[in-house]
């Protein structure tokens, strides 16, 4: 039977800067979101108290992968099922994820960072700022060198864009430097990181980025940003073959 306690969830919520940094990891299926989380855990679990929430569409496979990777106490990795709507659960109805974040923060208090992995969706899925304080969008070189140029809200305006699996670049004919340059341009200078779990330097840069965001969060200087439902883009027409006007959809 449920207990008849009198605290309400809304009442119990501390100020954002006084609770764990909630860091979202979004990106298309297969780009290495779980693997990136494993890398963050490996790099930071000695110095930070971490928790992980995975959003899976069909199963708890991502949670099982992370548990078997042995990078964190299995109890600190929690799956939630997003059913048929993985993008809904991280954007328009974040209830289940918020409850899971509050639970894990309470059960392992105090936590420094809660990593929330989205269910692999498409290029348009991003987290609501009501759920995460900051978000990483993950692409991989195997998805093709032109993906970064095509843009999208996550590519354009996530707090960090990761171009993952750079070690595969020679095998898939992608020029990593060009892809990073394209991404940097699409993001108007926002952070881009070329990552490979086998390249220690890149993992170290990822680690440093997380620590920097955490420091800003704790100082109350970090303001969660919504990447938006769509990135600004232009429509080409007959009179303006190179693009008539640039706009964003509200």
């Amino acid at each position, binding site marked *: 039977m449920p207990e008849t306690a009198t605290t*309400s969830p809304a009442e119990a919520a501390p100020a954002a800067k006084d609770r764990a940094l909630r860091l979202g990891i979004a990106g298309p299926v297969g780009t290495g979101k779980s693997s990136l989380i494993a890398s963050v855990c490996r790099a930071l679990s000695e110095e930070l108290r971490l928790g992980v929430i995975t959003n899976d569409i069909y199963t*708890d496979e991502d949670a099982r992968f992370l548990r078997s990777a042995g990078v964190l106490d299995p109890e600190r990795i929690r799956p939630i099922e997003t059913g048929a709507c993985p993008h809904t659960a991280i954007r328009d109805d974040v209830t289940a994820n918020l409850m899971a974040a509050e639970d894990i923060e309470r059960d392992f208090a105090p936590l420094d960072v809660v990593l929330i992995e989205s269910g692999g969706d498409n290029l348009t899925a991003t987290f609501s700022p009501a759920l995460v304080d900051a978000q990483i969008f993950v692409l991989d070189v195997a998805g093709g060198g032109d993906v970064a140029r095509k843009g999208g809200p996550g590519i354009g305006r996530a707090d960090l864009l990761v171009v993952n699996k750079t070690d595969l670049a020679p095998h898939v004919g992608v020029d990593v430097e060009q892809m990073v340059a394209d991404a940097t341009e699409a993001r108007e200078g926002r952070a881009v990181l070329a990552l490979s779990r086998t390249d220690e330097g890149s993992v170290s840069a990822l680690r440093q980025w997380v620590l920097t965001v955490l420091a800003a969060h704790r100082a109350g200087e970090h303001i969660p940003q919504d990447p938006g439902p769509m990135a600004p883009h232009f429509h080409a027409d007959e009179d303006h073959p190179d693009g008539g006007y640039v706009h964003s959809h509200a």
Partner: protein
Amino acid sequence: MLQSPTSAAGAAAQTVGLMLADSRLPSGGHVSSSGLEPALMAGMGRDQVEEYMLVRARTAALTDAGAAAVIRHGLLEAGQNESGQSSAELLTRTERAWAARTPSRAARQIASELGRGLLRLATSLWPDAAILRQLGTAPSRPVVMGAVAAHAQLEAEELVRLVVYDDAAAAAAALLKLDPGDPAEAMILVLQTCASVEDRVAGVAALTEPSDIPSSAAVQMEDWIEHHAHTTRRLFRA
């Protein structure tokens, strides 16, 4: 981003009812198919969906509706008498009576998670509502529906129709994902399902005692839900 709005007080009871019936309500409800996916995955035929929904309405949905109605009535009574003690007892007795009529642990578990999500939303909407503060941390969804109805002054019959509709609409929406056909047919199923228990609405709405909550269990349905909790490759929790 807009400035945080501060109060949801003053909404008409009917408006609150409409909001609760809206599938876009952000309370985590989109993970439920009202047991339809468990049934279809267990091999129930597409041609039996109509029958399934009719059975579901007069068993699980009326049990939920009865629990909600008893909670609504009891909390309103307790509010008039200012008897906090008796409302705590009523909540416990009603949860128990509902649980005894919902034998599947998996079904109770999902109802509790949905209830928690709805309560989370409700306490954000009405932070000062004394009625909502009496609920536990994870009451089942029918209990939260009853409490919200009491707070928002929703009529008992409206509440019963709301619970039945919500359950049927979730199944119909799931059907369109799992085995899509003409969407209009799914809406016909919803209206037909609600109409099929219309003659029970007044009686269930008038319930005041937990022991009188309808107890027509659908054992096969509960078994499917129980089994579903242990499967993978599912789109819905239950």
